[in-house]
């Protein structure tokens, strides 16, 4: 079953690649690396005022690092990861998004209280309250991975 699925996947990918080569957009890719930026959260639209982002089909303002951008970075990160990669190394993301974490983001970033890092002080207590109110919030990070510690107590 696995081999059949894997074979089917390879065939689909191969056909897809062959077909897509003729369908690829002719525009040049987004820059691999943005020039050095000053410290602090960048507001892209400051320089790219009404410019459309190459490839993303939206204004640069959509990537302005406003306070709410941090809380809602999921959509641009998923759909336009290449834009993030122009400034952020993958390790920046893995400060929080670790498949199997060894210390919580709040501890790892204990010297950066300005960054949004989950599981701050006393979360062992708070998770019992947050989990009752909204277990789907826990599921995002711990539903499929990073739940070895959860399993120690939530066993049956």
């Amino acid at each position, binding site marked *: 079953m696995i081999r059949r699925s894997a074979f089917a996947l390879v065939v689909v990918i191969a056909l897809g690649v062959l077909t*897509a080569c003729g369908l690829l957009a002719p525009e040049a890719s987004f820059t691999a690396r943005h020039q050095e930026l000053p410290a602090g959260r960048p507001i892209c639209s400051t320089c790219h005022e009404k410019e459309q982002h190459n490839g993303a089909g939206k204004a640069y303002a959509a990537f302005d690092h406003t306070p709410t951008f941090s809380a809602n970075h999921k959509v641009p990160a998923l759909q336009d990861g290449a834009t993030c990669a122009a400034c952020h190394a*993958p390790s920046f993301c893995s400060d929080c998004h670790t498949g199997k974490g060894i210390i919580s983001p709040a501890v790892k970033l204990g010297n950066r209280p300005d960054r949004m890092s989950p599981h*701050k002080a006393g979360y062992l207590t708070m998770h019992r309250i947050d989990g009752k*109110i909204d277990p789907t919030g*826990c599921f995002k990070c711990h539903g499929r991975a990073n739940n070895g510690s959860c399993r120690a107590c939530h066993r049956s």
Partner: protein
Amino acid sequence: MEREETVMCAPPGHPERIALRGWVTPGWVRVLFPLMSLAGAVSAQEVTAQSSTFLRFLNEPVPRITRGDQIQAIQFLGIDATGLQSDNLSLHLMGWGFGDLGRASRHEGTSDGDLSYGYLKYRFGKANAEVQAGRFTVAQAGGFEWVDGVSGRADLRGGFTVSAFGGRPVWFRGLGEPNQTDYQYQRDFIAGARVGKRFTGFGEVGMSFLQDGSKPASELGLPSAYDYTRRRAGVDFRVLVPGGIDLTGRTVWDLAKRHDGVVNPGSDSRIAEHEYTASGRIGSMVGLQGEYVARNFRSYFAGTTLPTLFKPTETGTFKAYTGKVTVEAAENLQVLVDYRHSSREVYGDANRVGAEARWKVPSRNLATGFGVHRVSAADAVLPIDTGLASLPGTKVAAFGLSHLELRAWGMLEKAPWSLSLDGLYHHFDDAKHPALAGRSYEYEVIASLGYQVSQAFRVAGDLSLGENPMYRHEAKGLLRIEYRFGTASKKEGK
């Protein structure tokens, strides 16, 4: 040193239920040596490596159970190498190793290590096309996965985009084999794809699909009465409405066939998730955002590797409405007011409301923030929990979850020194809540002092003190040594 056999002598959940193993194990070796070998082997135009070493001291005594003194050593090592043979080929690696230097501090054992990600990426010069192979994260149709496999994406003519991935879900072995029964639900194969259409200046729509696992539950090594196979389809959109309003959202359906015999009246919906957000601005000073989320537990939790916690058998849904207003009150003063109403069918309603202010004084390299939030939650009336299933209609009274949260923090930089303070306080309305051990509050204060030795080398020490229901008095120290080296340009904080 060979790994010693796990000793389990305490009931589940007991802090003493700790795997006692030798701390120098293949966990360190299997992560760090490959990373270092690869770093030496690659011939790249630019190589950047980040090393973070943590020595963590904990005193978390649980009354009448543990003494609480622990020392942990943690090493993160990441490598980014670009220009491998070709300008477009790059390598990205991140792994970590952990060891207890004294008594065991974790349920999973006294040592561990893993590769968080490690992949080769090729970026094409056109169409934002790229392919990557190795271990990476991917998100499709509501799934967020670590995959050992391949993935690719490209922009197509006419504004279309396509992305796809396939491989095997990463197994994060945390416990010994006898304790990994839940991992049987994590399958052998995973693949997904998304096709999108972009309308320049107006937005984007997309459709995605996720298939997780190739075996039915009955053919698993540990046959299960519950079939947690995942097969999902999703639609997503982004619409830019004239006037600067930005609408994004997605709906995800659970398409897997199940014959687990679970009777859950009211949870027959195959819609796993709705998530919609609207945001916009009023002038240059005020930002608005609203969000609606609805999740059907049975469909949303399908495919979990931990069904004992995320129970796909739970009846009902979770819904939440969130509103946020951000005001740029002055040049360096920002105020965020937020409100969230949530509702979980088997539990009840909860309201979280509060505000946060952030203030910067660039001339003094000072940044500070204050926040206050109040959570008013219905006194819980919960179904009797029988493990994998709940008895419909049978309920017992539980306890109040309402609480107040206060936070204050500050950061000061005076090169080469840096100082930060962060304090968090919770006051609970109902100290009789069984999770609170009769305590009505908890707090923690973290102080950090850092010294930038050179552009690439930094040391910092954190000290935190607090009280909480779990450990009563808690003291923690952390020594942080960060070293960044290589041939690429440095970017602070990136």
